[in-house]
């Protein structure tokens, strides 16, 4: 019999519904597991403790009274610290919000609670979601459960590590340039970045407004589907959220891949890829072919411009989004005799080096004399990148690619040169620029035992097909069942 914390999200919820297990027990198990392995992963910035137990007790009361508490009833989940949770400290992984407690829930938080989930803690991340390894967290780096000297990926490093370490049954992350998908790949779990506009951004601390999306990380595709169903859908408080109805993703996983055409973009098999990564991905493609998918070569010719485009658009938007952290109404304020000094020193003290770098880059890209050459140009190239995808996805139902050129690298390996770090995002970034859905499922390990991920990119708002492809692949393989040796 598996320990409670080892149950899948669906199985845990089912047992609560059948009253075989209490939510309090699930939460206790989760908290115990967190305590047991946290020193090895550092996935959490805040652990819920009493509040989580109280919420669990409440679910138990209502279940006992015969109420339907929702598809996630009683299940412990983790929430990335970029996402507001009323009454619970929300830091964005930054010192500038070290003591910030919002009075409001993000819409996704409220929806998780409405589906019955119990938020068991806030997850570690790169500061303001800026990073690919969680090493930019102002508090502590998170670590890969598969190897303690390796990064878990970023920026949702805590979200990936906590799920892989079985500290919670699923988590929410955010993805602006790959921040759900990269940790999912490095940590050997399932991660989904939905189509831009599929999930509300209200209450999610903004990094890049036109790229940010919230998505689930989970132990398998079905769990991810349940999470997505709970959080997706129109939100009148987010003007960019789509009014399209939300399909019943969980019930649509079974279709298989027979007859689907899957594109293989040649630009994504990059020079200098770790050979095992390429091999694992190509093997995964072969499995999909065996299952009945038709694989076709496609080209996304503007891929080489994606990094520059991303780092101009995202940093420009971020430079404005982070202007509100000025020490006036909340957040860190350093003592100063005059206002200007207050701004300059508070922000200097509160923001880490990477955040400063991106604010500077973004401010420069927007400033007088440079707007046309940088920001405007980048937004135009973004259109070209989108058109590449539109073209490829006219004929194909989805695209399959690797997630990163390598498996998880060592802590400290890439922190010297920012540009090197930026290149980790090369295979995920375009998907955000095009606003498309992207799913990652584990598809192998390298000789060191480090997980390798497979990315499935879909048509806009076609999460159903993407999840179906992932589910079919899972059905024929075992990678998602492997457990980190903690």
């Amino acid at each position, binding site marked *: 019999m598996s320990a409670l914390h080892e149950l899948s999200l669906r199985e845990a919820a089912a047992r609560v519904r059948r009253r075989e297990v209490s939510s309090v027990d699930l939460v206790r198990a989760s908290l115990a597991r967190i305590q047991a392995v946290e020193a090895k992963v550092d996935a959490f910035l805040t652990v819920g403790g009493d509040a989580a137990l109280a919420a669990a007790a409440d679910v138990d009361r209502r279940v006992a009274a015969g109420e339907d508490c929702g598809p996630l009833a009683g299940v412990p989940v983790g929430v990335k610290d970029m*996402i*507001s949770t009323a009454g619970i400290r*929300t830091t*964005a992984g930054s010192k500038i*919000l070290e003591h*910030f407690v*919002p*009075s*409001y829930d*993000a819409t996704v938080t409220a929806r998780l609670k409405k589906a019955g989930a119990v938020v068991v803690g806030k997850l570690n991340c790169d500061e303001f979601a800026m990073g690919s390894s969680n090493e930019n967290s102002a508090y502590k780096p998170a670590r890969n459960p598969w190897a303690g000297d390796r990064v878990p990926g970023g920026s949702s490093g805590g979200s990936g590590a906590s799920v892989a370490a079985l500290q919670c049954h699923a988590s929410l992350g955010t993805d602006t340039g790959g921040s759900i998908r990269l940790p999912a790949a490095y940590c050997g779990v399932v991660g989904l970045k939905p189509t831009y506009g599929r999930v509300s*951004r*209200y*209450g*999610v*601390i*903004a990094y890049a*407004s*036109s790229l940010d999306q919230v998505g689930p990380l989970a132990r398998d595709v079905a769990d991810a589907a349940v999470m997505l169903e709970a959080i997706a859908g129109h939100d*009148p*408080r*987010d*003007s*960019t959220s789509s009014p399209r109805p939300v399909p019943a993703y969980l019930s649509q996983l079974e279709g298989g891949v027979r007859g689907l055409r899957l594109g293989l973009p040649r630009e994504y098999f990059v020079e200098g890829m770790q050979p095992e990564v390429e091999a694992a991905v190509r093997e995964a493609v072969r499995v999909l072919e065996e299952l009945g998918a038709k694989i076709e070569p496609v080209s996304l010719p503007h891929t080489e411009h994606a990094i520059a485009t991303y780092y101009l658009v995202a940093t*420009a*938007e971020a*430079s*404005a989004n*982070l*202007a*509100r952290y*000025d020490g*006036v*109404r*909340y957040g860190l304020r350093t003592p100063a005799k005059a*206002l200007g000094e207050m*701004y300059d020193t508070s922000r200097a003290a509160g923001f880490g080096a990477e955040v400063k770098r991106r604010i500077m880059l973004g*401010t420069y890209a*927007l*400033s*007088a004399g440079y*707007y046309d050459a940088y*920001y405007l140009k980048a937004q135009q190239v973004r259109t070209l990148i989108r058109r590449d995808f539109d073209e490829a996805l006219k004929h194909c139902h989805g695209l399959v690619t690797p997630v990163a050129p390598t498996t998880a690298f060592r802590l400290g390996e890439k922190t010297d040169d920012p540009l090197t770090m930026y290149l980790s995002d090369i295979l995920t970034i375009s998907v955000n620029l095009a606003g498309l859905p992207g799913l990652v499922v584990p598809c192998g390990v390298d000789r060191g035992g480090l997980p390798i991920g497979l990315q499935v990119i879909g048509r806009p708002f076609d999460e159903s097909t993407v999840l179906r492809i992932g589910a079919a692949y899972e059905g024929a393989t075992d990678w998602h069942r492997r457990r980190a040796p903690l």
Partner: protein
Amino acid sequence: MSAHPDIEAVIGLEVHAELLTRAKIFCGCSAAFGGQPNTNVCPICLGMPGVLPVLNRRVVEFAIRAGLATACRIAERSRFARKNYFYPDLPKGYQITQYELPICIGGQIEILLDGDTRKIGLTRIHMEEDTGKNIHDAHGDASLVDFNRSGVPLLEIVSEPEMRTVEEAGAYLRTLRSILQYLEICDGNMEEGSFRCDANVSVRPRGTAALGTKVEVKNMNSFRAVEKAIAFEIVRQSEALRTGEKLRQETRLWDADREETRPMRSKEQAHDYRYFPEPDLLPLVVPEAWVDEVRRAMPELPARRRDRYVRAYGLSPYDADVLTQRKDVADYFEAGLADGAPAKEMANWVMTELLRIVREEKLDDALVIRDWPISAAQLAKLVCLVQAGTINRNTAKGLIPRLRGTATDPEELVRAEGLGQVSDVGALEAAVADVIAKHPAQVAEFRSGKDRVVGFLVGQVMKATKGKGNPQLVQEVLRKALT
């Protein structure tokens, strides 16, 4: 009038008008003025982490109204933008405004000056959010910030630099305010800050086309201040032009105490606002159908109404202008006409008696006057009674305060108290004879050539008739009796 006849002033005005919506532009907080500090606030208008704006449709409706009233082109697609700078009253560190694609483009405002009409062009009208308010604390070493006003919707109305004199600028400003009040989208209160004006002033040698160095003038808190500030600037700049002194392109503040403009001390005058399209808001689409709907609901605008009064009622342009500056006054006037009052006389009574009381009691502070000192029906009746000779002017004037707050028909009152004018020549002759007998000295003075003393004698006859004597007849009868 500029300081030198050979120098021409070029003036443009930028007005920020606070809109009378119930809620703020991007959140569901109340947009009402006042209240305890930081109570009409929420995470959105406080700029908390993670919040997002959602546009209030009535702000768009008001913008369309303003655009139609000023003959602008209403853009079918317009966009919001971020204007980035740091200030304590700006919670997000950027203001959501419109930059490259505003909702209204072009347009004009017709002003009436010295009997002539002129059209002043508009560059654009756009929507944006207001900031909070800073006040200095009592000890002067800190500022205190209240965000009640943060997120209140504004329309920014930018004129072309087509005004040439202080008078034109004043007329433009008054006309614009009147239009916004007619549309009931702004209460136009400069002192309270719901209607703000910045001026751009430059000068050039008359007859040249190139624009001189532009100076922006801010901090003018009343119409008079705007006029004085512009006048001051024109003089200052004209002097510089004349002496060949180089003018700096700068922002200057009007100092109401010293009655001069001074440069802003901040060294960051030239802001780099780094405008870019607001990613949290989608492009605004205003279909033709919506514009038509707004157009159908528009009231007749002041200029049209003024012209109609001149044509239909034969009023002078000046009188028509006074009557149509406020919609509620014009509505009152027409209600009186509907009750049968003749136009010129009604106009006269409204302008001299009614508006005097309205101004004295500051009833015109309200956007729409509802409690008039006398109803339109009652005033119309008084006018008719005077016109018919039933009562004289003074009697009518005296009845106004007595009718206040009542629904009494003035005619009833006149009848009941016997206030009718005495026009019976016989009765008047008797009264005149009596007065002549009682005041031989004044009579002698009159007969010796002092015509003025007839006023005293008329007054005595009026007293004798308890004020009801027909003034014209009294004069006639008296003069006849004196010769």
